[in-house]
């Protein structure tokens, strides 16, 4: 007798009710978006009984709303679909490139940035890119929605702040002001489809004199969770994000990293590479910021 279940609720209320009922009955629930991590983990090493709660039939998790103040991106949208959205690509090129780095064409037909975040791997490529764009995670709860800054969402390796009866609806991201650019770079030993050895995202805003007024830097795969590195951002603010400033930001990233040695790289190597990636991603973000200065 199989004790697996599958439901695909069509409203947020129904989804929450299903989660609450299962939790009350002591049944394990598993939120399913693209499933490219969930089903692999389920089939490879954790095949315990559970109720799959498919959130792809909800309007909210599939929604993209581009408004004056904020942009909302639904949690379950496949990265292949996101990357067909020209407006999003213009607004957040770094974030969409990060999504585009994950997996093959087939995987991108399913995998979502919401799933990438909720999988909560230290090496999730879109997480640093969400963090530098100051994305707020919009979480459905029985008391309405609550929001959590992305940098506070992941709490450990494979762990996050979602309670069993909650789920991620999507991301609310402030519209980038004029003169803002973002970028994400990761290092892998192959040309594509691998897990990051280290990754760095940078977003910065330049004023009309080319001075950096705002910066956010985030590093991935070099600590138990992706990290927001405020010391790296401070090294950029007030400068023209020139070589020297980028070098200082890079050093701040290397200092903030708490990597481990594993088959993908050593502590020393990751520490060095995460800084190099900061310098290079910073240069790309700067170029994008310069070309965005005149489009208000």
């Amino acid at each position, binding site marked *: 007798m199989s004790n697996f279940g599958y439901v695909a609720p069509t409203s947020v209320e129904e989804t929450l009710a299903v989660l609450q009922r299962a939790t009350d009955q002591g049944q394990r629930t598993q939120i399913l978006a693209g499933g490219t991590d969930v089903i*692999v983990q389920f*089939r490879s090493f954790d095949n315990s009984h559970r109720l799959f709660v498919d959130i792809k039939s909800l309007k909210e998790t599939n929604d993209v709303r581009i408004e004056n103040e904020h942009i909302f991106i639904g949690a379950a949208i496949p990265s292949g679909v996101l990357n067909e959205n020209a407006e999003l690509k213009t607004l957040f090129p770094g974030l969409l490139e990060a999504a585009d780095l994950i997996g093959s064409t087939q995987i991108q037909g399913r995998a979502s940035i919401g799933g990438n975040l909720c999988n909560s791997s230290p090496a999730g490529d879109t997480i640093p890119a969400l963090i530098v764009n100051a994305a707020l995670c919009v979480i459905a709860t029985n008391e309405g929605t609550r929001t959590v800054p992305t940098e506070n969402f992941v709490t450990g390796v494979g762990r996050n702040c979602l309670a069993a009866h909650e789920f991620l609806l999507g991301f609310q991201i402030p519209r980038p002001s004029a003169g803002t650019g973002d970028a994400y770079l990761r290092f892998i030993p192959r040309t594509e489809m691998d897990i990051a050895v280290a990754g760095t995202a940078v977003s910065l805003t330049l004023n009309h004199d080319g001075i950096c007024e705002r910066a956010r830097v985030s590093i991935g795969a070099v600590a138990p969770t992706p990290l927001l590195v405020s010391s790296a951002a401070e090294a950029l603010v007030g400068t023209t994000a020139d070589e020297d400033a980028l070098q200082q930001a890079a050093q701040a990233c290397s200092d903030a990293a708490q990597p481990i040695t594993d088959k993908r790289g050593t502590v020393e190597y990751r520490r060095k590479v995460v800084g190099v990636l900061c310098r290079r991603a910073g240069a790309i973000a700067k170029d994008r910021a310069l070309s965005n200065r005149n489009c208000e």
Partner: protein
Amino acid sequence: MSKIYVSTTVNGRPEDVLCEAHQTLLDLLRDEIGLTGTKEGCGTGDCGACTVLLDDRLVCSCLVLAPEADGKEITTVEGIADSQEGLHVVQQKLLEHAALQCGVCTPGFVVAAKALLDKDPNPDEKTIRYWLAGNLCRCTGYDKIIRAVQDAAQELTPTK
């Protein structure tokens, strides 16, 4: 738990089947519907042998739960060839270029390559290689497959 009723369309044909929550779309196609053209390679989304179209989007059927197919349209390798005209040009060119040996990866390559040519009838070599990077082949070394797809594109848009 009782079985789940799934009403889906496979290669244009309605299919009503019962499945279990933890079965995959690949299991559904092969074991319940009897379409064994779609192969299982790795079972973890790495090899692309199980590639199908799900509502016109390329997916690994091993990473889709069977009940997710409800209300969806699926195209497998069995749905690629035209019953009137015979093999699709991608299939014909794979044959002509001897771009297969054991053939386990071929159904996935056929579905993926056709999806590319439907989207972009005139792709360059780099585009083809990146698009097919999720399809692994341990026999051919890929070059013959890439040349076959280039040749198929040429035949579809002879002006190139």
